[in-house]
């Protein structure tokens, strides 16, 4: 019922669940599923889909069958994630510092220096503890019994952690007996870990009790629910750009009792929109002058500005070498084999094998602007071929066979559906921590490989067993 496609045995971590399902009444899962949807709708746990006026607030479909990861597997994953995210931070420190990895020929200079996410404004800057990507979401896929590969890194403003927490909350409500039969590591500690991380990242002058805020683009942002959820759990203000102002390189928020200095901004606004004085002048969601305050060291931005250069899909292909360079060891978690279309030989092979590959735009995200060869029509493939030939630098390609499946409730029965996993890794001057779990995304259409919520994907609770 789970594991690599075609395998007939039940993975060890799923055995208790499988037994439980055998004895459960046949319509129990459907009933619980309906209950979950009602709860989520009542709570307003929604996301917005860009360009979709009709249903501008939708629920992400929630699958009540949990994704289960064994203790040993998780231990391995956790080590790999810490190694990878430490390397990402070291890489960013280097890129905006001495650029040794460019000099050593690990990554091509042009890929970094002409990258749209490279921010020359950050050159020479050193955020507290040299931490750049404080909150990092690493997308993983299972490829075999013991193997997880990294599909992509999200070093900018990764989202989805609220679903990790809400899904757990929901499962505990729906299936208390299942929790009694498993020993599942708690994810609820995530927000405490996050708060500790943000505090530890504050500028020195802030003292023991820094003022922290979550900066959101506003209620129309697709992840707004998550922003408000996090602010709530952290016990900090959820601010919009207009709630902040900068005076004398110090960031203040407007309160009913007058201006109050802000020390740490957990910003969920992209670099481009952060400060109209430095980046896009037409930004209405940013804070004029915040980059100057940042440069003066008066405020910490999490994540740092310019981290996008590390999660670019083209830079991704160099991650194994980057990890070796900065950690001195072999990567514990490998990459999905990837063709860099910027290299002529690779491009030729990709063009030859287009119908069987997944091709992604280097700077794209959210499942937009990608080609899934096996699921595309001939015309779509030919269209994409032209785009690819015109701008090969903008694309990478990966094989499609690498996503594993997990049992998922489809209508009245369990079927296997492709899943991926996004654990969340927190870094601060006090260390690197991983919440035991993550967001499992599931492609709800039979055979589909696209798990993004904006493209009809759903989510599952992710259980890490403690035994």
């Amino acid at each position, binding site marked *: 019922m789970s594991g690599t496609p075609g395998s007939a045995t039940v993975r060890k971590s799923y055995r208790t669940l499988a037994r439980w399902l055998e004895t459960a009444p046949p319509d129990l899962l459907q009933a619980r599923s309906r209950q979950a949807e009602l709860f989520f*709708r*009542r*709570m*307003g746990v929604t996301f917005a889909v860009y360009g979709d006026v009709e249903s501008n607030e939708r629920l992400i479909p929630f699958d009540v069958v949990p994704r289960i990861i064994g203790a040993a597997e998780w231990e391995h994953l956790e080590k790999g994630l810490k190694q990878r995210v430490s390397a990402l931070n070291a890489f960013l420190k280097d890129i905006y510092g001495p650029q040794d990895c460019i000099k050593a020929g690990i990554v091509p200079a042009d890929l970094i220096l002409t990258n749209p996410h490279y921010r020359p404004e950050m050159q020479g800057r050193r955020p507290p503890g040299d931490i750049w990507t404080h909150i990092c979401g690493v997308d993983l896929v299972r490829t075999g019994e013991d193997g997880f590969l990294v599909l992509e890194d999200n070093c900018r403003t990764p989202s989805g952690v609220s679903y990790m927490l809400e899904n757990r909350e929901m499962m505990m409500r729906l299936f208390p007996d299942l929790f009694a039969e498993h020993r599942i590591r708690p994810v609820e500690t995530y927000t405490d870990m996050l708060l500790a991380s943000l505090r530890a990242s504050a500028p020195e002058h802030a003292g023991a009790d820094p003022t922290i805020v979550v900066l959101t683009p*506003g*209620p129309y942002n697709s992840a*707004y629910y998550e922003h*408000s959820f996090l*602010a*709530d759990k952290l016990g900090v*203000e*959820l*601010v*919009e750009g*207009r*709630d902040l102002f900068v005076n004398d390189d110090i960031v203040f*928020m*407007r*309160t*009913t*009792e007058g201006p109050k200095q802000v020390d740490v901004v957990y910003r969920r606004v992209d670099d481009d929109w952060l400060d109209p004085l430095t980046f896009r002048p037409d930004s209405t969601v940013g804070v004029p002058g915040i980059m100057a305050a940042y440069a003066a060291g008066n405020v910490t931005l999490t994540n740092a500005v310019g981290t996008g250069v590390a999660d670019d899909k083209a830079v991704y292909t160099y991650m194994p070498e980057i990890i070796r360079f900065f950690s001195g060891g072999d990567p514990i978690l490998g990459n999905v084999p990837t063709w860099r279309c910027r290299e002529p030989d690779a491009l030729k092979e990709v063009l030859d094998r287009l119908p069987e590959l997944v091709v992604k735009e280097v700077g794209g995200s959210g499942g937009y602007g990608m080609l899934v060869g096996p699921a595309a029509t001939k015309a779509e493939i030919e269209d994409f071929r032209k785009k690819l030939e015109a701008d090969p630098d903008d694309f990478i390609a990966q094989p499609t066979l690498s996503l594993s499946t997990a049992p998922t409730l489809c209508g009245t029965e369990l079927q296997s559906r492709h899943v991926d996993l996004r654990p969340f890794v927190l870094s601060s001057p006090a260390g690197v921590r991983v919440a035991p779990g993550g967001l499992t995304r599931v492609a709800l259409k039979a055979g589909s490989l696209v798990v993004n919520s904006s493209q009809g994907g759903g989510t599952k609770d992710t259980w890490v067993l403690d035994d």
Partner: protein
Amino acid sequence: MLSRTAESLYWTGRYMERADFLARILEAAVRLAALPARDGAAATAWASAIASAGVSRAFAASARTPSEKSVREYLAFAPDNPSSIRACINAARTNARSVRTALTIELWESINGAWNGLNDFGEPTKRDDFVRFLEWVKGVSLAVEGASSRTMLRNDAYWFLRLGGAIERADNTARLLDVKYHLLLPAGERVGGQLDYFQWTTLLREVSALTAYRWVYRESVRPWLVADLLVLNRQMPRSLASCQAMIVSYLERLAADYGRRGPAQRLASARLTQFNEARIEDIFQSGLHEYILAFLGENNALANAIHDQYLV
């Protein structure tokens, strides 16, 4: 607290109150229009609903003429009316959503539930269904007020939410009184006649005060007593005097929490003193209409003072 948070709470309070008021106006209009009166009485009832809601100008500009259909649609649902019941609930929910973290789960669920319910209702066309819809809106505002009063901490978030409701309620009560005084009686109907009497009782019903009137005055319904109840009576929870007292108490709680009084507190207290000294005979002497116009202006000035002091 963020000024924007305070502002959103304040407007959540105002919009929920306004939705409730609109439902009450429409209920009264349905009732008045059903009277077996001479020609034109029904149309007058619907026109007065528009006037009560304070949207006469926008309504006329929209090229509509007052009829049951047009007024019901305009005040309850019309997309081009930013003060329709639907728009108010939408706006209350948008404001609440933007400060989701300042609300209790119960309060958020009651507001979000109202918004979900709005979609479920659609636009009822049958009169029965429409009246049920109005009942539901009144229920929603009770649920929201109950959720806030039973679950929220008594801190600035609560005071701002309530302050918005009280300012809006004062405005609404004043408008209601004014409309009865000037608009409602069709030509040829006698002041003190049957229709006049029915209209006054409907007005009392509209603010859930008919029984209260009888308890307080133990007389048949008389215009100056209705005005006394709705302007000066401190037992009546939505009289202008009561609203004013509530506004003062919320502002004083804020001042105490923040350790500072400001122009809004001074303005509000000065007005409350005027209420303590006022007598309904004097108000009638110098004209209820003029009194109400002045009240609306002052209420607005106070709203501006609150805005300047806390919400920007």
